[in-house]
């Protein structure tokens, strides 16, 4: 479980996040949604400690993260898996080496087991026979998937995925969504997915957090989402014609 309490973040004079309070439950897919530029990625980076918020705190299973010393922070981070919006694969390492990296750094298993684990993770994201290629030699969507494979390699307790579906075709997108859901349920992971893909929200979101202009505007379950009368939320989710048809069908 991750709790965010009264978190605010600004860069210079621009206030990006204001007083965010949220509880991200364990064993659930927590989705953070919102318009481009609303502050979703910044929120994720504040939670994992890449940015230090001006106010508020983040608690990992009760432990307040920003007050911990460097070593204790590293301990928690070894239990975090994160997919960056930009994938952030290491360009000097091959696809396989990228996934092996956290294992080689921290896992206490034999080299063959590491290899087996890395291949398993790659297989789960549908990346096969790409072991020896470098990140610059694979497509953007593939980079995203390799990023997910690297994030889940260590079986993290906390999983952050920033836009796992951007750049993916609808079919692969569903594979990834299902993978994230399976892992979350199987290992009781605290999962935070940042997305603006309504298909994922409708498919796998357990708890949904809507960020608008840097504030937590609305939170609730997937069912509550469709029936909410929050104006900004409705504008966001019913922006596409497909979702508008869903609403029409529901009302009719």
């Amino acid at each position, binding site marked *: 479980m991750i709790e965010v309490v009264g978190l605010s973040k600004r860069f210079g004079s621009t206030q990006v996040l204001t007083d965010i309070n949220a509880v991200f439950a364990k064993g659930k897919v927590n989705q953070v949604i919102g318009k481009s530029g609303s502050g979703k990625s910044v929120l994720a*980076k504040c939670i*994992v400690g*890449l940015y230090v918020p001006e106010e508020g705190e983040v608690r990992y299973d009760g432990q307040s993260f920003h007050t911990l010393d460097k070593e204790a*922070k*590293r*301990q*928690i*981070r*070894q239990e*975090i898996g*994160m997919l*960056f919006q*930009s994938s*952030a*694969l*290491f*360009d000097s390492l091959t696809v396989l080496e990228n996934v092996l*990296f*956290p294992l*080689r*750094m*921290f896992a206490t298993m034999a080299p063959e087991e590491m290899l087996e684990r890395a291949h398993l993770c790659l297989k789960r994201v549908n990346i096969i026979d790409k072991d020896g290629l470098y990140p610059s030699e694979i497509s953007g969507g593939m980079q995203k998937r390799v990023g997910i494979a690297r994030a889940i390699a260590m079986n993290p307790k906390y999983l952050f995925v920033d836009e796992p579906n951007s750049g993916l075709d609808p079919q692969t997108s569903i594979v990834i969504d299902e993978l994230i859901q399976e892992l979350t349920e199987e290992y009781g992971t605290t999962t935070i997915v940042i997305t603006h893909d309504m298909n994922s929200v409708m498919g796998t979101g357990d708890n949904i957090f809507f960020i608008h202009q840097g504030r937590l505007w609305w939170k609730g379950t997937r069912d509550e989402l469709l029936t909410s009368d929050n104006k900004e939320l409705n504008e966001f989710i019913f922006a596409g014609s497909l979702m508008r048809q869903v609403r029409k069908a529901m009302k009719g």
Partner: protein
Amino acid sequence: MRILYHIGRYFQLQGEVFSKPERFGIYWKRTIEEIDLLGVKSLGIVALLSVFMGAVITIQTKTNIDSPFIPLYVVGFAARQSTILEFSPTIISLILAGKVGSTIAAEIGSMRVKEQIDALDIMGVNSAGYLILPKIIACVVINPFLIIISMFLSIFGGYMAGTLSGLVSSANYIEGIQFDFNAYHVTYALIKTVVFAIIITTVSAYHGYYTSGGTREVGISSTKAVVYSDVVILIMNYLLTQTLLL
């Protein structure tokens, strides 16, 4: 005030660089890679420069001191002294600051702007140690070899230029390079080399590590890495010479 901020942050970064590595095996492998990239791949430029510089030093010495009162071995002697004391350790280090320093700053800087350093931090890896320590060790180990090779090649270049052009006889040159040899001068040169290696790697890594922005800033960091490495090398050269030779 700005300079104090940078100096403080620079030493803070070194504190992280020199904290205990997660896995020695991985650091070892990285160090070997860096020795190849930063050291072995610099051999060509170092060799080329050294031969030509030695040749030029010899010709210039000869043409400037052409007098019957000066012994014939002086050309070889002067070539050896300037090579060992200054040309190889300092000038070659300045050249390496340009080549190695910009490589280091550009590599680490682009990892920063592409969020790869964040990715390391998130995994709980000590990113500063992982990225920078192998580079420092690699240069500290390999640069003395490069400089020794440079010394030999420079003196050899002088020999070739001197004898081929007929400015100095082979016997006189060889007598000159052996005349009044002081092994401490080589020690002094190697101490300088090691200090300069540390300066090049840490200053450049500092500029790369704290890059923020995009590709343009990576370029700026790369330039700054070279400029600041050079300035610090020149200052340290002066201080070391004063303490070690006087």
